[in-house]
């Protein structure tokens, strides 16, 4: 199960320079700040700061971005506890018992529990990833282009069927994303869809497009006001929070179950932390001897939600590392960072650069412990940031995004792509299309085309080739099942409701 030699190489790589370590604390701080402000998302922070990683080496860039990811997961819980407003969609369940604890005057303990559970949850997620990497490598190496192509389609289907909004609309926009991803010069040297624009020869500038769709499009609609000040915001006591963090280990069963659930759910493309916290909360409530106390300030509820949303980060790395396919917005940004550094995730990456993968996992486990200290020290400051009006934050973040996009392309192509895709993203959000499906489709379009072309060349265009590949058939069955399941579930619910 363990590849001790690669783990040792990972350690060596990690401790050979101090550079990657120096970026973790700033990354955590950025994640905490974006996570704590309702309306700003962790993935938004990752996309905004992606251009800064261009000058870094691959390991430093990934560690910086994953530390934003880790910080954001805890940051979202702070306002959930103090003001009943989840800072991100992954902290919705934290409000259920976190805010009632605040109303009882137990906000310091709730914040501490949340911090402790987040740290332990993140450690659980990455530890499971550490255990899975070696067996996963063997499985994914046995896959050919046909399997990879079907996995891409399955991943996109899952993102479309499991994400918020309407399924057909999300499937449509995923397919459009795939097509946009093929614009430019193909591997055969054919130029498609550029309409004479030389800036499109290398395809659509994916990072400005991603920042536009994920971040800018949402900033136009940010509500004006900042969060209202409350007594709880002004009375954060570090000692109380620290004691709360220590108390979190009194709930080992809830944390471990939440951690495992979060990792498994996080590994499924399309759902991740947004669902993991709710599922874990529901499970903790069902298992409790006193389920009526949930929703009234039961510490188990806070611990279950925060352990699950933090551990889902480790789970979401599974498909990114093993297949090169992102499962959500955060991992989509990480895949963009892979591309920038000419690294292709997937079977060969796992086999050839196992030391880098282990270095990333080990550093992320260390990150979780660092979060404990950074979170503790920063809590009073974060409570102040929450009060900054979003009427000021929105335009300021847009300006920084424009500078960042200019930095990516070196000319106005980046900012113009940003504007165009922020408008597209705004329209998609307005009509409830999945923005994540569109972006991930765009990122995977080129890969899907080359895998399909290789399958075609190997099979000679004979479809019966697929019948001789049981893994492909199994994956196709899963794909069809994913398409049908939502309709079947909806019918069952409807008939139950009638009964």
């Amino acid at each position: 199960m363990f590849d001790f030699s690669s783990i040792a190489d990972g350690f060596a790589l990690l401790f050979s320079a101090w550079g990657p370590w120096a970026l973790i604390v700033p990354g955590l701080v950025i994640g905490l700040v974006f996570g704590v402000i309702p309306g700003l998302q962790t993935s938004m922070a990752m996309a905004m700061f992606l251009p800064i990683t261009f000058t870094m080496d691959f390991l430093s860039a990934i560690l910086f971005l994953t530390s934003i990811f880790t910080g954001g997961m805890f940051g979202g819980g702070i306002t959930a506890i103090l003001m009943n407003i989840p800072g991100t969609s992954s902290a919705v369940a934290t409000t259920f018992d976190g805010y009632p604890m605040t109303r009882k005057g137990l906000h310091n303990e709730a914040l501490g529990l949340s911090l402790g559970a987040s740290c332990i949850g993140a450690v659980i997620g990455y530890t499971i990833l550490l255990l899975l990497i070696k067996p996963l490598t063997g499985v994914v190496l046995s896959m050919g282009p046909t399997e990879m192509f079907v996995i891409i389609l399955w991943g996109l289907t899952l993102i479309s069927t499991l994400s918020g909004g309407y399924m057909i609309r999300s499937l449509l926009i995923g397919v459009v994303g795939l097509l946009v991803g093929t614009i430019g010069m193909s591997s055969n040297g054919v130029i498609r869809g550029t309409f004479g624009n030389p800036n499109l020869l290398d395809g659509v500038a994916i990072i400005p497009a991603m920042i536009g769709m994920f971040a800018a499009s949402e900033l136009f609609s940010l509500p004006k006001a900042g969060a209202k000040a409350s007594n709880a915001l002004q009375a954060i006591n570090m000692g109380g929070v620290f004691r709360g963090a220590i108390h979190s280990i009194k709930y080992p069963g809830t944390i471990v179950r939440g951690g495992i659930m979060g990792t498994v759910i996080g590994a499924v493309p399309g759902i991740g932390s947004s669902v993991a916290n709710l599922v874990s909360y529901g499970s903790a409530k069902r298992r409790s001897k006193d389920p009526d106390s949930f929703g009234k300030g039961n510490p188990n509820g806070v611990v279950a939600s925060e352990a699950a949303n933090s551990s889902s980060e480790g789970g979401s790395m599974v498909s990114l590392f093993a297949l090169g396919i992102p499962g959500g917005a955060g991992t989509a940004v990480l895949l963009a960072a892979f591309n920038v550094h000419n690294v292709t995730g997937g079977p060969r990456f796992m086999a050839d650069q196992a030391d880098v993968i282990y270095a990333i996992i080990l550093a992320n486990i260390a990150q979780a412990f660092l979060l404990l200290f950074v979170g503790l020290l920063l809590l009073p400051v974060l409570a102040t940031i929450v009060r900054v009006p979003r009427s000021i934050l929105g335009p300021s973040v847009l300006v920084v995004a424009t500078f960042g996009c200019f930095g990516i392309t070196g000319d106005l192509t980046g900012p113009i792509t940003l504007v165009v895709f922020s408008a597209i993203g705004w329209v998609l959000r307005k009509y409830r299309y999945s923005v994540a499906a569109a972006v991930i489709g765009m990122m995977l379009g080129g890969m899907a085309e080359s895998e399909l072309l290789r399958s075609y060349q190997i099979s000679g265009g004979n479809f019966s080739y697929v019948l001789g590949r049981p893994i492909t058939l199994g994956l196709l069955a899963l794909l069809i099942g994913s398409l049908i399941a939502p309709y079947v579930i909806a019918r069952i619910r409807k008939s139950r409701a009638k009964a």
Partner: protein
Amino acid sequence: MDNKDWLKRMDWWHVIVILVISAAICLYLVDSINASSRVGNLVLILPASILGLGLCLLTLAGIVREAIRGPSEDVKVSTPVAGESDQRGVDSSVDSPDEHSTVFERARPLVMLALFAVYVLMIPYLGMDGSSALFLAAALIVNGERRLIFILGYSIIFAAVATYIFKSILPYPLHTLFI
């Protein structure tokens, strides 16, 4: 629900969005076929375009159905996608627009989008610093800020600091007016 006025209930803006998507798919398919009609070029584009157009038709059918009978049968899932904000869960509790919100408030995202487009188009003429300061000032006004000193001070200082930082770290020349 009254079925006679279904045409009035149709979400025509959404229909236009679908028509634009369909037109874009057709245009891209034709351009790709003109570039090369070999299998190697169309292996993904052709089936994906056909699938996309089929899904456009299904979406249109859903919009019409919604207008005639009420909410569409297209499966609606209540959970937000990983990493995407769930406006229902995140922001609505803060200050969601209610029925009393003004026309301007409802149009504010479009005004912001238009301002953002003008900002980017002005960069070659006003530089990153000048256009950023103007955009910030205009956006603050649109967002309801009325303290003139604050608007001027914040937009100029923020634009100057951002320009200075990015000018120092970017390997490309940054077009600026003052800094």
